[in-house]
């Protein structure tokens, strides 16, 4: 076991992957200086400017060019800086990268890791705070990864680089500095949720930093005799439908909690899949952001957050 930060874990995995495979390279704005959040620190010094490539502020070209380079046999790690900025490269990702293998009848692959940091952190307002993971779940051809812990950011970064599919890799900006123990030999299975807390009274499904919030809520609930099974999905496509169903069949109760907008969110998909396949003791509950825009002032920002209290309150209402 090694102590790592969430950001450092992905950096360690990327560095190891680049040492092991000369086809792996990374490209994005300001990577030579270590990346805007330090996620690439030291890589330029070790691998040089061709493999740790500074790009113009030119998201469509970063995404499109990395795709072209992937089609000829390299394995790019693409940095979009913020998930919000990645929208400048939407055609490249959705119309080109996600579709090429199928459209061309299997002739091409796009082995790419597309890093799009998500989430509210501190007063970054409407264009630097969004969680848009469900957009990509809706796009066939893409894999969607939303790690919440140093362990997962290490193992999932390795798995994403090794994958032959394009992986939309969404790290949460608020937890770069979170520390944790990392078992560098632990395997990672796509589409298998992690249990963050055991319990049979209510199933709480979450991902990204909200999984950490849900875990704190479960700790509070345990003191009151309510034992929640907290499931961190870790990947939204594929997602652990079987695991969630198995848990809900034990608990009979379901809460889904995520930071992104609740309306049309992936939580709705989880709830729909559960109620199509099993019966519940109580109506399921979705907790997500109101369909409102992320503001700058901290008190306004807090109006949109899913909190420990909200999750705990929902569980209490459901279990009593």
């Amino acid at each position, binding site marked *: 076991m090694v102590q790592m930060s969430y950001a450092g874990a992905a950096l360690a995995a990327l560095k190891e992957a680049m040492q092991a495979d000369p086809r792996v390279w990374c490209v994005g704005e300001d990577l030579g200086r270590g990346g805007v959040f330090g996620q690439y620190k030291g890589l330029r010094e070790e691998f040089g400017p061709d493999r740790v490539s500074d790009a113009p502020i030119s998201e469509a070209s970063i995404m*499109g*060019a990395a795709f072209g380079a992937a*089609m000829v046999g390299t394995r790019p790690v693409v940095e979009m800086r913020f998930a919000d900025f990645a929208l400048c490269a939407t*055609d490249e990702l959705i*119309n080109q990268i996600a579709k090429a293998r*199928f459209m061309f*009848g299997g002739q*091409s692959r796009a082995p790419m890791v597309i890093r799009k940091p998500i989430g509210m952190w501190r007063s970054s307002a409407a264009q630097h705070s969004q969680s848009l993971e469900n957009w990509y779940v809706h796009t066939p051809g893409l894999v969607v990864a939303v790690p919440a812990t140093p362990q997962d950011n290490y193992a999932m970064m390795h798995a994403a680089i090794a994958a032959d599919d394009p992986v939309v890799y969404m790290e949460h900006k608020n937890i770069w500095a979170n520390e944790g123990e990392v078992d560098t030999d632990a395997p990672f299975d796509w589409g298998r949720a992690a249990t963050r807390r055991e319990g049979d009274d209510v199933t709480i499904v979450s991902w990204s930093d909200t999984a950490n919030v849900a875990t704190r809520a479960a700790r509070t609930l345990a003191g009151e005799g309510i034992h929640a099974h907290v499931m961190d999905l870790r990947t939204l496509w594929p997602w652990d439908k079987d695991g969630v169903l198995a848990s809900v069949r034990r608990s009979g109760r379901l809460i889904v909690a995520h930071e992104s907008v609740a309306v049309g969110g992936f939580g709705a998909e989880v709830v729909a899949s559960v109620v199509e396949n099993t019966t519940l003791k109580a109506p399921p509950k979705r907790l997500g952001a109101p369909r409102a825009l992320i503001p700058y002032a901290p008190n306004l920002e807090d109006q949109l957050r899913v909190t420990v209290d909200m999750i705990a309150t929902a569980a209490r209402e459901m279990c009593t």
Partner: protein
Amino acid sequence: MTATNYDIARGTALVTMMERIRAFEQVAELAATRDQLVLGAIHLSIGQEACAAGVMHALRRDDLILSTHRGHGHTLAKGADPTAMMRELLGRKGGSCGGKGGSMHIADFGVGMLGANGVVSANITIGAGAAHGIKLLGDDRIVVDIFGDGAINRGPFLEGLNWAQVFDLPVLFVCEDNEWSATTRTSDMTGGAGAAARAQSMGLYTVEVDGNDAEAVADIAQDLVSRIRDTRTPAFLHARTYRQGGHTYFDPATYRPQGEAETRTASDDPIARQREALLAAGLGVADLDRIRDAARAEMDAALQTAADTPFPSDDTVFADVQDIGSPEEVAY
């Protein structure tokens, strides 16, 4: 060019390729209109064949190209099999893309054709990236990235050209300027002096050519390809041509001034011009007609074979989407 140093073999190769491209598209159009066998829209490049034939003649088989929705000619000229292409137009098994792409997504990686593209301008950044990949891999291939005049008003034109220039990438951008952006005249929609001026402003080595003169295109393409292969820096070719037909095969192009297409076709058809060049060099009309007829027979046969081929099996719809979370395992 003078008769004494005229390369008859190359001239013949160029007219042969242009006749094959035209025959392919004429037969494809009949397959759409007469036979109702082509399922989706097809965009014909009739009148633009010199650009495809001339540029591709300068390339090696392992060089790479990317093209557009109007890409049949480039694909054929790069060496793709017309039967596989015709099957793709008909959505059949054994099509270039297994019947999954159709005309606008034909690719043949075996001959270095990395895909036509249904989104105008999108192939510009991707082609720059293919050249970026070649640079990282360290081999001596080059990329030709072809697009139309309509593409120069989208962002990827700026971003892709800039990318190639700042990273010193081995790519030839070819603007095949047929004067029309779908159903609107490009000059009405374009500020400034257009494609070549924009490329020059970003520092690219830029050349303009009469895109209906196959010999001139081939000469310049050969120079540019040699330059790119030696210097590993990008270049830009602006080839002026004319789209003789509509945007799609079912577009009668009534938005054009009466008689424009007829006049331009009669005075400046690239195949007619290449036939003239070869007649002047000593070939006979019968020789040239034989080339034309052989091309037509080849494409008629390709259509017949395609029409006799079954559709792909239903289950292939779930294949080649993705490995992880494949719809072959779970659709939802």
